[in-house]
């Protein structure tokens, strides 16, 4: 008995318990749903067979169906545009703000704190606010643009198929900037001041310092922020639900929202699973880059 408590307290028993708990959690809440989702993507599933495993296997039919739908190509490119533009703009604006608040001026930390407001708000609330800003007939943005004479006719931000996707991207950029700014601020604070001092003694200007010191020293942070940004952007669902529901006519639809529509609005659960399997593949690739970039950070 004593031996047992001893192994538990300071021996291998305790380690085992910890590992089993972590592993058990991963298996039950991550591995099982992933495998279950993969299984469903090869089956014909509707709402009424959701709880039983005994469903007809249809091979690759679901994949063929998803890839042959006329809207698939458009939704794919929308997803690429949404992720690419969102991450790029979030990174640029976030980095610029981080650099700005790195300067020593009164209330810098205060102001930086205020920027977090956007991050704290639930995306659904952000979506509701943006939908008032972007509304076509009575929107705040159209009113402002008309007042200052930029436009004469209202722009239908949410219902014009040519602009709807960009409206969601604008809202998403606003939502993601604070996260980028904070992570990059942390990275900037970690760069020793004397490196800059030495550089300026050697006569390097601000721009030169940025490209020769700041950027290389921030490599790990930038890698992490980009990978996390891609993953968060691929998870962005609430803004679509609140702003455009992927419409009009899929003009602003993306894979993550489409997957939900297929599974829970059309009850074509097998097809919804296919879309999420395709997305998982992509996220794994991004996660791989993220792991690589943080490993570099640990080694250095």
């Amino acid at each position: 008995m004593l031996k047992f408590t001893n192994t538990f307290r300071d021996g291998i028993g305790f380690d085992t318990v910890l590992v089993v708990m972590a592993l058990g959690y991963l298996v039950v809440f991550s591995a099982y749903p992933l495998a279950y989702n993969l299984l469903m993507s090869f089956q014909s599933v509707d709402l009424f067979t959701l709880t039983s495993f005994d469903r007809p296997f249809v091979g690759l039919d679901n994949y063929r169906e998803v890839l042959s739908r006329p809207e698939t190509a458009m939704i794919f490119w929308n997803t690429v545009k949404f992720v690419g533009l969102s991450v790029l703009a979030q990174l640029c604006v976030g980095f610029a703000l981080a650099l700005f608040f790195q300067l020593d001026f009164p209330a810098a930390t205060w102001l930086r704190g205020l920027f977090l407001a956007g991050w704290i708000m639930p995306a659904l609330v952000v979506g509701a606010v943006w939908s008032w800003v972007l509304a076509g007939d009575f929107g705040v943005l159209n009113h402002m643009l008309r007042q200052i004479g930029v436009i004469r006719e209202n722009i239908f931000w949410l219902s014009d198929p040519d602009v709807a996707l960009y409206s969601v991207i604008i809202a998403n950029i606003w939502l993601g900037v604070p996260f980028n700014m904070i992570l990059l601020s942390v990275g900037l604070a970690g760069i020793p001041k004397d490196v800059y001092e030495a550089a300026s003694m050697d006569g390097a200007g601000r721009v030169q310092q940025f490209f020769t010191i700041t950027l290389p020293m921030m490599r790990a942070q930038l890698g992490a922020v980009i990978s996390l940004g891609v993953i968060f952007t691929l998870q962005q669902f609430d803004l679509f639900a609140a702003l455009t529901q992927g419409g009009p006519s899929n003009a602003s639809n993306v894979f993550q929202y489409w997957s939900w529509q297929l599974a829970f609005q059309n009850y074509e659960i097998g097809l919804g699973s296919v879309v999420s399997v395709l997305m998982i593949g992509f996220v794994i690739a991004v996660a791989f880059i993220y792991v690589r970039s943080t490993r570099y950070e640990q080694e250095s």
Partner: protein
Amino acid sequence: MGKTMIGAMAVGAATFATAAPAQQTVLDLWTIDDPGEYHYVLAEEYMAAHPDVQINVRTVQFGDMVNDLARAMATGDAPDITYIDNPEVAMFAQRGLLLDLGPQIAASDIVHTDDIFPGPLASVSLDGGIYGLPRGANTIAVYYNADMFRAAGLDLDAPPRTWDAFYDAAKTLTRPDDNIYGLAFSAIATEEGTFQFLPWIQMTGADFDDVNTEGAVRALTLWKRFIDEGIASRDTLIRSQWDSTGTFNAGSAAMAISGPWELPRMRGEADFDVRAFALPVPQEGAPRASALGEGDNVILKSTDQPDAAFAFLEFMYAQMDRVWNEFGYLPASDVTVKDPQYPEIYAVFEDSMRAARNRGPSANWPQISQAIQGAIQQALTGQATPEEALARAQDRIDRIIR
């Protein structure tokens, strides 16, 4: 004080439940209503009249009902009675999950299928069986701002009856400089879009399984003109009926297509003379059609109390003459409503109800509806011509039905 009261009531209820006689019948009822609405009110009344019956009412969000029911049926947790939106009855009935009420109705003194209007009756009928009783119905018509009609020189007492006249009136009423649209309706990519569009093509002889027709193309082209010519807002593509009618109430649109559920809010918000007329037809003499909304009370096949459940269904059905004034739906059967509220508008809706047609029936209704919404949106955004959009939709519908 409020809290103590609730606490005391809860304790009282618990004591009552344990002290109740053994033969107490317990029925579980799922609804989309909130307390104070139809199912809650009628369950209270029924329990007061039948102390031996206990009805447990549970609210499920409208959008979650099908999901939650399917899950509950799979795990054996289904209620005895539930409310289902009418196009979805066929989906559950075809899978054998609903009780066929035919034999019970045949023996009933209260329910006579001949009294039920054809639209609502079709929505609960499948292969000779009757799988539910409508709790009421609703449909759509055109509300119009009589003040704007007068100002535009249109005849108040002869509202447009054909599509051409309707288009002309809407065009005349449109005043872009004052930010006033001639018409507000909903072409949103949800069930509401299908609900608003289907009657337009049904009037031309098309239907949910036959959308690639000349008449349907004409209907969709008319809708496209409303958007392209600025008669209705581009936001029609993303506005629900409730939001669209909100712009009518605010005086930003001269006409609005929607249903009777708008009336209470309209009375508070619209500070002008509101009237209504039935949906216009393609040309004089063409058959009429209107949408059929609202849902049905159904009994699940898994119930162990089919007789008690049917008795409660009969009771609810017998209250049909109260639904307009108390709950805001139209009667789904031939009853006389005494002193209806908003009598002129009631007359328009009651008349439209006779032309109301079912969506479906099809066991795959959600997918079919989605194909129709896709066609509407592709045509209105200009991604496809009405002909192409409807041909594509027909292609998908054929594959779904097959």
